[in-house]
Each structure stands twice: as structure tokens, then as C-alpha cells.
């Protein structure tokens, strides 16, 4: 039971960004992907989620044996995939409560209605855990939220939707240390043998709080190095310059 990315090639506007990416994330593990700007990190997240601006030209992404290429964005999400956005969209006029409710409702069989009382109870518990004011339920999704509030909100959604595989795209960007800790606590609370994580980040800092089982370096659209969590520290110390100097070790 894994999220398996095999020889993935993807392009946008005729430019190839991912050039044969291989990665396997078994349930129960946290994998971190690090890499310099422009290496294809965010593209990978969007391709896994099924964003229409990207075309997969070769290779595959399968989730517990299901080929995602046959699934639309919403179908992938309902099948157990979650993308925590680097820049979560603001959706004016759609309240947090209604938005999450619609997302939960979409997971129920047709004709079945959400138990509103249980839903709100659960929502409030999780908001308390993440230190999100309950007033946020009536606010429009992400509208006027600070950077930290947006990221907490991403984790709240992840908690409410209980995905099997979580792809977190630079969740640490724009966060101060306190917000980072809260977000990491939320993620750690969700770690389980039944759930896999792909944590995309530019900096090692996040990995102090979310300890990965494996670390991969993405450059030029491919995984160029893999290792344990010590690889993150090495990158933090030496930077990504080794990529230029041809010290590439095969993945």
C-alpha cells in the first residue's frame, strides 16, 4: 500500500518540468522532498493532485494500486489524496463551515446527509487543537487570513478530511516559528501506519518539527539523491551548490 510515482514526465505550456521522477511513499512513512527553486517541487504536487495546466507525457502515479491518470481532481481527493497548498486560494462568500461541509458531504453516498451536530463538534475540537478561533467557521475561506492562518487552515482541512496520502507543498513558507510548531503538531498528530506523507520544502527547518523517514533531493525534474533525515541537515549546511558542481550521486 503505497503512493508510487514511476518515471513521471510532465510538461506545461510545452516545457517539460518533470523528467522521469521515481518515488515510493508507503503508508506509515513521511518522505520529504527538498530542492532549489525551479526544481519542479510545486509542479510535482500539482501533477499528483491532477491540475489541468500540467500534462503527464510519460510514466504514472498510482495510489494503492489505482492509476490516478484516470481520475479527475475531485475524484483523486475523494479517493484519499490531500494537497496542502503553498498558496491557498481565497474563496469570497463561501464560509469555512459550508466549504468543509460540502467537502465532507461529497464523500457520502448519494442521498445520505451529514450529521450536522457531530460535524460541528468535530470541527470545533480540531480548531481548538490548532488554536483557530471558532469565529473562523463563518469567515470566507482564506479571505483576509494571515499567512499563518491560511496554513493552519490547510492542516484543519487535512484533519477533517482524513486523507490516506498527504502532499504538503511548502507548508512552512511564510510561517513564523510559533505557527510552524502548531502546524507541525497537527501533522504529527495525524501520523499513523495507515497514512503516508510527502512533505515538500525548501528549508530544513520544518523537518526539525516533522521528522521525516526519508529525504529526497529534487533537481532538474528528477530525484537526484535520497537518504535519511541526516541528508536534510547536510543540505542545510552545504546548500544546493553541490548540484552545480556535478557531485550528483545517482538516486
Amino acid at each position, binding site marked *: 500500500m503505497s503512493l508510487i510515482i514511476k518515471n513521471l514526465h510532465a510538461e506545461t505550456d510545452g516545457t517539460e518540468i518533470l523528467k522521469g521522477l521515481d518515488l515510493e511513499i508507503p503508508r506509515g512513512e513521511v518522505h520529504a522532498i527538498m530542492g532549489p527553486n525551479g526544481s519542479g517541487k510545486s509542479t510535482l504536487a500539482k501533477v499528483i493532485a491532477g491540475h489541468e495546466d500540467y500534462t503527464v507525457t510519460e510514466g504514472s502515479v498510482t495510489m494503492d494500486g489505482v492509476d490516478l491518470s484516470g481520475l479527475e481532481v475531485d475524484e483523486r481527493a475523494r479517493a484519499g489524496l490531500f494537497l496542502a497548498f503553498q498558496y491557498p486560494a481565497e474563496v469570497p*462568500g463561501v464560509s469555512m463551515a459550508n466549504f468543509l461541509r460540502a467537502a465532507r458531504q461529497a464523500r457520502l453516498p448519494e442521498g445520505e446527509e451529514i450529521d450536522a451536530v457531530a460535524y460541528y463538534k468535530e470541527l470545533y475540537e480540531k480548531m481548538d487543537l490548532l488554536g483557530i478561533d471558532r469565529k473562523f467557521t463563518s469567515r470566507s475561506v482564506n479571505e483576509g487570513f494571515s499567512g499563518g492562518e491560511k496554513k493552519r487552515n490547510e492542516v484543519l482541512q487535512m484533519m477533517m478530511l482524513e486523507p490516506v496520502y498527504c502532499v504538503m507543498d511548502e507548508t512552512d513558507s511564510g510561517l513564523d516559528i510559533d505557527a510552524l510548531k502548531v502546524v507541525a503538531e497537527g501533522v504529527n498528530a495525524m501520523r499513523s501506519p495507515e497514512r503516508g506523507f510527502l512533505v515538500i520544502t525548501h528549508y530544513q527547518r520544518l523537518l526539525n518539527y516533522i521528522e521525516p523517514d526519508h529525504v529526497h533531493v529534487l533537481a532538474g525534474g528528477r530525484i537526484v539523491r535520497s537518504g535519511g533525515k541526516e541528508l536534510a541537515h547536510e543540505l542545510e549546511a552545504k546548500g544546493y551548490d553541490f548540484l552545480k558542481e556535478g557531485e550528483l550521486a545517482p538516486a
Partner: protein
Amino acid sequence: MEAVLESGSVLETAPAALEGVPGWFNELRQAGWKRFGELPMPSRRDESWRFAKLGQLEFDGVHLAAEQPPPGHRGAPGLQKRAARFGFVNDTLTEEESNLPDGVICLPLKRAMAEHPELVRAHFMQRETKLGSAKFAALHQAHVSNGMFIHVAAGVEVEDPIEVFHWLEGDHIVAFPHTLVVTEANARVSVVDYFQSDQKARGAWAVAVNDLVAGPGSQLNYLVLQDLCDEARMIQVNTTTVDRDAAAKAFILNAGAAWARQESLSLLEGEGSRSDMLAVSIGRARQEYDQRTFQHHASPRTFSDLLYKNTLYDESRTVFSGLILVDEGAHYTDAYQTCRNLMMSDEAEANSMPGLEINADQVKCSHGSTASTIDEKELFYLEARGIPPQSARQLVAQGFSVEAIARLKNEALEELVLSFAAREFGRILGAS
């Protein structure tokens, strides 16, 4: 009930004298009929009918209702908490319920004329129709037979809204709904006017007049919920006058009708007065909403804010024409006007004609109108949470209206409007 010619349209039917009303009222009706005859039908050359589809002014075979409807409620369930409720079917009173504090007159027009003749006469049809439908206001004056008269005495605050249901019933019938609301000094009231019909009201018309008179320091909130059947049409002429330090807030929801035109004139007569003009229109199929507005600042330190939001599906169409006029001497005025269109289809059409005329100093004014399509980033975000594309589009479109609805700043009224909007969006989602 009036005598009705079998074949003639209402445009060719002179009003008969009504029984049980004061003489001046019958005279007013005759004067309205005369004026109707004198005024020309709108033409292509009229600036105030620019972009309008004049073919919508179709009155062939449109007649006054002859039958007496049985009593009872028609239309939406409305509000749980209300101060009063009155219902009219084709202008005949069919329900009344009232739980109002002392100092409030809230009566069907006929009864109000009998009990408070001078008060009604002082305010009834006193304002000139300036935004294009003078001929139809005259037709209304000729045939108006009932309506609501609401008068709130000085210092009286009515907590819950007053509901008025105008129901059209029958093929090619016409009604002339009339709602007149007067607040004296420091009074407060909210009135909701529902315009609905049965599905058989094909070719039916509502030619409505609504006057709001907000006395000094008073607060007057007025809502129109227009959800007529798809083959009915409506014109509503509204005039709002706002006295010193008073605040008037008007909200219009368009969900139904083949064609609806609303003319809203806010006259900021007293220093420090405020007018909020809000509207949400949800067009589908070949529906058309034609809205003409006038923010007239006649005194210093007056404030007006207009926000109209249209969501257009299929081949629906809107026309918005808005003028801000700041009179000489109306210094320190703030006037804002925004009309936004969300285009949900390539075939939909939005026409906007904003206008601004400033004759005073120290004035803050702005106007803007936009037409945009749904934001793909928002859709992707919702879909990435498992919400199917159709529902995601519906959520975003519905959310677009909320900015105007939230300005009601009254939870019960916001919920009421949202329930109508949600039903309309549900209808659209169901049809797609």
C-alpha cells in the same frame, strides 16, 4: 374588483370608480389613466431604455383578475420571527397577521385610506418617476386598488421585519402591488416585499410602485425578493427619500421572471443622511434584469453606497444604468457605485452604464463596473478537497453574491435571502 372587458388589454381598460375609497383616490386613478394616455411608450431613442429589449413590454391580452381568490398564504414560508404578515393574491388581501407595537400603522391601503386618510394622501404617489417608467407608474396609479401602508411613529422601533407577499395567479393577469413605508423621526422598521407567482402565471405582469420615506434619524430597511415564474414580467418603480441623519437600506433579489426592471431612486434630502442600495440578480436561461438607479445627493455630508452583483448563466442578460448626482452645495458627500457581473456562460451578456455628475466640493465619489469569469484557482482549490466541479462552481457563484447580502447586517434577513439564492442556484445545478 373592477369590471373587466373580456378581450381588451389592461392598456385599453379605463379604471372604474372604486367603492369604499375616498374621492381623491378615484380622482387620482383617473388622473393616472389620463397621464398614461398622454405619455408615449418607451422607444429605442430613450436614453433611459438603452440596451433594454422593448419587445419585453408585451401586454397583449394582459388583464385584471376577475375572480376572488380564497384566503390563505401563498408563496415562500418566509421568516419565523416577524412583526406582521400580509398577503395579496392579484392585489386582493388573502391573509393578515399582526403583532406590532403601538405607534405602528400597518394596514392594507384601502383600510389605511379609511382610517388615516390625510396621512396616506400626504405620501401616496407623491414622487416623480424619473428613470424611464413614468408611463408605467401612471398605469399603476390608474389601476392601483390596494397595497400596504406602513407608518412608524416617532421613536418607535419595530424589532422583527414586516412581511408582505404579492402573489400572481393566473394566465396573463396583471397586478399593481403598492408598498408605501414611512418612518417618522428616529423610528426603525424592516419590510420584506415578496413577489411570487404560481407556475401558470404565463404572460403575467406585476407593475409595482414602492415609496420609502425615511424621517429624520430613522432607519428604514426594505427588501424585494423577486421570484416570479419564468414567464411573468415585472416593473418596479422605487423612490426613497432620506431625511436628516436617517439611513435607508434597500436590497433587491432577482431570481425569477422572464424580465424584471427595477428603477431605484434614492434622494438624500437631509444633511447626514445615508442610503445603501444593494442587489443580487441570478440570471439563467433567457432571463433579463434591467436595473436603473439614481443616487441623488441634495444635502451636505450625505453618504450613498450601491453594490449590485449579478451572476449570469446561459443566455441571461443584465442592464445596469446608474447615476450619481451631487447637487451644488452638497459638500462632503461620499457616493459609491459598484456593479459586478460574474459571467457563468459565454452567451450571457452584461451591459453597464455608470454615470457621475458632481457639482459640489470636498466630495468622494467612485463608480466601477466589472464583468469577470469564475476564478480557476478557486475551483481547483475546492475540487482538490473532493468537491465535484459542478458543486464547486455553484459554491463560488453563490459566494459571489454574499458580499451584497452580508451588507444587510441582519442575520435573519441574510438567511432569508440566502435561502432564496441557494434555491435558485440549486435549480441551476439541477438543470445542468
